[in-house]
Every structure is written in structure tokens, then in C-alpha cells.
């Protein structure tokens, strides 16, 4: 359905050119969900925007790679061809529900716009459909709400409206970029439930971007872990949690807060020391070496960057010393 191959996206910054997305590849089969996790700044949103071809033209560009969607390479699609995809075949919802809706247009207007654009509906038809969509995303009394402006709605409600807009044309792929990060916990659960149900109903694939492994555990089939613009581990979900290969992934899993009142605070919560290095200070060799407790000489660059290699069945990791190596033979 969607296959990303060797994607590189660069930005011009004051410190020079940076690879915000550095040679990543993944597949998204029909109806499945891929989780992309990683710390802030690891390149998750840039990956999503690259697939949408919405990288700001003045500073950034897709330097190389292919994005194959239903057999078509969308990196070479014309701008107008791409417009026919956006909001129609591939939709995206954003991290910031409070600011992602236009404040001067009604909710109804903003949903209808997509329908009129892609499905050539008349205004009346679009209005009717907008009410149905609001109903679908669980907004009460939708026939009243379509006349509301975004500022009348709470963050959770606005994110539901964003979902309604994204799903208006029944897309094949939904990219959800941290759809619940800005919302409080109970609302988060509601939105995730809603997305899960709608996924079944519409048989769509989802790319779920998050920094919350809890969300991944609940929601995804596969997961890709990003670090400094690279995918450093990629595996089916049960495998990642059972046998993480990359020390970074292990650190992420350990830092999920758990509820064990009998343990002390230190035992309950561990963190990965240090922070993500800025792009122009990424060390040669493994980009995680400075924060890695297992780092050895080989990680420091003499053998180059560790490639993303099979560490176990269907389990890829970019580490010279994977934690649970297993070959096909055994």
C-alpha cells in the first residue's frame, strides 16, 4: 500500500544543511498500523510531512528516496497530482489541535471544503455529509456544531473535527502526528478509541506518530523507532516489547512509568541519560554512542554507521551489538 524507500529530507539551517530524515525505509501494508516513536526532534513530523509533500519549500526538500503509494511514486508526482492525494487518499492530523483549525471559518465550512474539493459535492450535499461526519467522530448535536467556530470547542472536540476533516473522503492512509499529545489523559483514550474504531470501519492504514510507547503498545502492529533522523529499530510490536534489540529502544521501554507501589521511586522510573544531540553535532559512527551504556570502540566511527540489519526474524536494528541477537537458523 505505502512503501517508503531510502527517504532523505534536508533543511537549510544557520549551521548548514541538516538531514532531518536520514535514509529511512518502511512499509505500511493495507489496514495495518505503523507506530513511529522517538524523542522530540528525532524527525517524526518531518517524515510525515515528507509523505504529504508538505515540507516548507523555502528551507527544506526531499533530497532522495521513493515514496510508493499504490504503485505510484509520489515523490515525482506533479504538484496538482499531489493535491489530488492530500486530504483525499492520504490525510493527516496534527499535533496541535488548538491551532490547527482556521479561527475565522465555521467548523462546518472547514469540513465541507474538503468534500467540495475532492468529491465535487454541492453545498447542500456537503453540509449533510459534514453533519454525518461530525456524528461519526462522536460530536453531540452535530447540526448545531457545524455553525460553531473553532474557539467554541474544547481541544478534544477540535481534534475530533480534525479527524472528521481528515476522514471526510475515506482516505487509504491516515497519518496521525501525535494526535493526543496536547490533550489530557481521559480525552487521549477517547480519541485513540475513536481512531481504532474508525480504522476498522473504513479499512484504512494508519501511521501513528507518538513519543508514548504506551500508545504504541495499544494501537500498532509494527513500530519504527527513530533517533536523529534515522530508523534505528523496526519490528512487530510484540517483539519490540519482549526483546528490544537497540539499547535506545530498551531505554525507552524502561522509561515507561509503571504502577508498582511496592517498588521505590528509582526502581519504578528510569531515564536515558543525556539528550538528543543537535543535528550538526551528531558523532560519526553510531549516533547514540554518547548515551549508550554498552558502547564499545566499534561504535565510535571506525566501522562507519551501524546499518539497519536483521537481528532476529522480521526484527531490524541499527546496532553493532544487538541485545537479543537471534539468527534465522536457531
Amino acid at each position, binding site marked *: 500500500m505505502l512503501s517508503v524507500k531510502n527517504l532523505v529530507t534536508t533543511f537549510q539551517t544557520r549551521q548548514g544543511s541538516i538531514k532531518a530524515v536520514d535514509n529511512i525505509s518502511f512499509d505500511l501494508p493495507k489496514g495495518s498500523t505503523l507506530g513511529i516513536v522517538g524523542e522530540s526532534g528525532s524527525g517524526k513530523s518531518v517524515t510525515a510531512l515528507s509523505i504529504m509533500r508538505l515540507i516548507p519549500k523555502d528551507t527544506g526538500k526531499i533530497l532522495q528516496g521513493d515514496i510508493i503509494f499504490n504503485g505510484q511514486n509520489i515523490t515525482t508526482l506533479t504538484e496538482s497530482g499531489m493535491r489530488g492525494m492530500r486530504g483525499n487518499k492520504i490525510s493527516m492530523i*496534527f499535533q496541535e489541535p488548538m491551532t490547527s*483549525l482556521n479561527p475565522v471559518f465555521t467548523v462546518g465550512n472547514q469540513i465541507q471544503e474538503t468534500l467540495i474539493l475532492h468529491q465535487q459535492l454541492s453545498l447542500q450535499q456537503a453540509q449533510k455529509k459534514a453533519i454525518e461526519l461530525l456524528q461519526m467522530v462522536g460530536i453531540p448535536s452535530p447540526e448545531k456544531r457545524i455553525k460553531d467556530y473553532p474557539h467554541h470547542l474544547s481541544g478534544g472536540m477540535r481534534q475530533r473535527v480534525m479527524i472528521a476533516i481528515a476522514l471526510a473522503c475515506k482516505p487509504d492512509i491516515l497519518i496521525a502526528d501525535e494526535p493526543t499529545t496536547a490533550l489530557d489523559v481521559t480525552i487521549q483514550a477517547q480519541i485513540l478509541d475513536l481512531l481504532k474504531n474508525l480504522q476498522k470501519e473504513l479499512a484504512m492504514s494508519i501511521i501513528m506518530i507518538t513519543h508514548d510507547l504506551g500508545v504504541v503498545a495499544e494501537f500498532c502492529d509494527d513500530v519504527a523507532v527513530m533517533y536523529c533522523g534515522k530508523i534505528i529499530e523496526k519490528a512487530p510490536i510484540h517483539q519490540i516489547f519482549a526483546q528490544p534489540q537497540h539499547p535506545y529502544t530498551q531505554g525507552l521501554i524502561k522509561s515507561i512509568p509503571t504502577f508498582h507501589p511496592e517498588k521505590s521511586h528509582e526502581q519504578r522510573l528510569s531515564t536515558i541519560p543525556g539528550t538528543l544531540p543537535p543535528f550538526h553535532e551528531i558523532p560519526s559512527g553510531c549516533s547514540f554512542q554518547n548515551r549508550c551504556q554498552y558502547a564499545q570502540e566499534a561504535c565510535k566511527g571506525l566501522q562507519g554507521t551501524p546499518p539497519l540489519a536483521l537481528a532476529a526474524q522480521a526484527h531490524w536494528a541499527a546496532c553493532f551489538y544487538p541485545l537479543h541477537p537471534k539468527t534465522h537458523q536457531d
Partner: protein
Amino acid sequence: MDLKTYILRRLLHTIPIIIGIATLIFFIFNIVGGDPALTLLGKYAKAKQIASLRHEMGLDKSLFLQYIDLLKSIFTFDFGKSWHTKQNIITSLKESGWISFTLSFPPFIISCALSIIIAMVSAFYRGQFLDKTLVLISIILMSISILSYILLFQWFFAFKLDWFEIAGYDKGFPNFISYILLPGIIIIFLSIGSDIRLYRTILLDEINQDYIRTARAKGLSEVSVLFKHVLKNAMIPIVTNLITQLPFLFLGSLLIENFFAIPGLGNFIVTAINTSDFPVIKAVTILSAIVFVLFNLLTDIIYTILDPRVKL
């Protein structure tokens, strides 16, 4: 609350503001300032002359009565006669204000339309060659002084090419047009540079908003994004800025009116100041304060109409 009650309430609110302004002006003119009769007649005036002038001006009345007179003049809209021209002040203000308005309103509209269009083109091609060129041109237009425009344009277009009148004015209908064309063009040149820069900044600010990214993610073309989603948001600060400029259309540009000998309000006020024409100065001070208060109110009203987030 609906818009009508809101406007009515705001109008009622302006009454105490206007009375406050009048009080302040009364304080400045009648208490802080010296005796205008003395100022007018000079050091060697005889006591009798002074007394009769003071009587003529109503200065021999008690301060309280003078204050009441001032308030009365606001509500009856009658500010008496000018000392200098002996004409009814309101009639003269209307006449010269209208001349200033016919001089500056057409350039205002043209420059407004042009600068919004050019700013949109600039924003559309942001960061590219055309945008950079337009920014450079507007900075150049902004940096040239008003005097250079006046002297250069008068010399070149009026004197050398003889396309326009160099200066002067004729109140008759089609005739006056030939006198206001050249100053009108200069007014456009004076305002368009900074307007383009301001509107471009406002538009670019909108273009970087999250909801514009949403609009693009829907599959809208860059043109519909710009004309629908960006423009409607940008109109809020743009219109606000335009309305605050409106009162100045009546006040006129002092320098332009002076250089082109156009008997507009700007000229009228300067003459009044030069001749110590106190009733005129007082009337202009009060009226312009009132006009500013009213246009402030208008800005707020338009704002509530344009921006659905503003609660009445």
C-alpha cells in the same frame, strides 16, 4: 448581546470621554495658557482695548460659564466665528476638510488596493527573486523624503513635461481634478512602500500558522489557501490599520497642501495657528479628538464583525 446594543452602549460610553476631553482642552486653553487677549494685542495694548476684546471673546465671563459655553458648543456644533476670517468656523472646516478629503481619499483607496495586491504577490513568491525585488523597491520608496518627491515631481512632471499644474487650486468641479492629480500621486508614493511591507509581514505571519498547514493538507491549491484562508485572517489587522488612517484623510497633509497651495484643512489649521486664531484652534482640537474617539469605536465595531473570536 447583539451588535446594535453593543454599538449603542459604546456610543453612550463615548459621551463621558468627550466631556473629559473637552474639560482637558478647557483647562489647557483657559487656565494654563495665558490671556489670549493680551497675546493678540501685544505688550503695548491699552487697558480699554484689552477689556473690550476680552468682552468680545467672552473671557470676562466666569470660568464656569465659559466652561458651559464650551460644552454647549460641542452639542450644538456651533463654535462661533474665526477671528481671522470672520467666517463661521464649522462652515470653513467643512469646506477645507472636504478639499483635503477629495485630495487624499482617492490616493488612499488606490494605494490600499495596490499595496494589498503587491503584498499578496510578494507573499506568494516569498523568499524568491520577485519577492526580494518588491521588498527592495518598497524600502527605497519608504526611504525617499517627502520633500524630494514634491520637488522632483513638480519639476519633472509639471514643469518639464507640463502634464499637471505645478500648484494652485480651483473649486469648480472638473477643474479641481487637474490640481489634485500630482499631489495625489505623491501621496500614493509616500504611503505604498510602508504599506506593502506591513501587509507582507501580516500575510507571512498568517502563512506560517498551523491552520494554513491544515488547509494545504486538505489538498487546496496555494492560490485558494492564500485567497481564502490567509486573506480572511490577515484582513483583521489590515482593516484595523486602514480605519485608523481614515481621520488623517480629513486632516490632510500639511506639507503637500502647503507646497501645492491647496486650501485644505491642513493649510487652514496652519493659518489659524500663525494668526493665533483661538476659536479655530480650540474647535479643531476638540473636533479632532471627537473624530479619533469615533473612529476608534468604528475600529472596534469592524473588528467584532471580522473576528468571530471577539465576544461582544
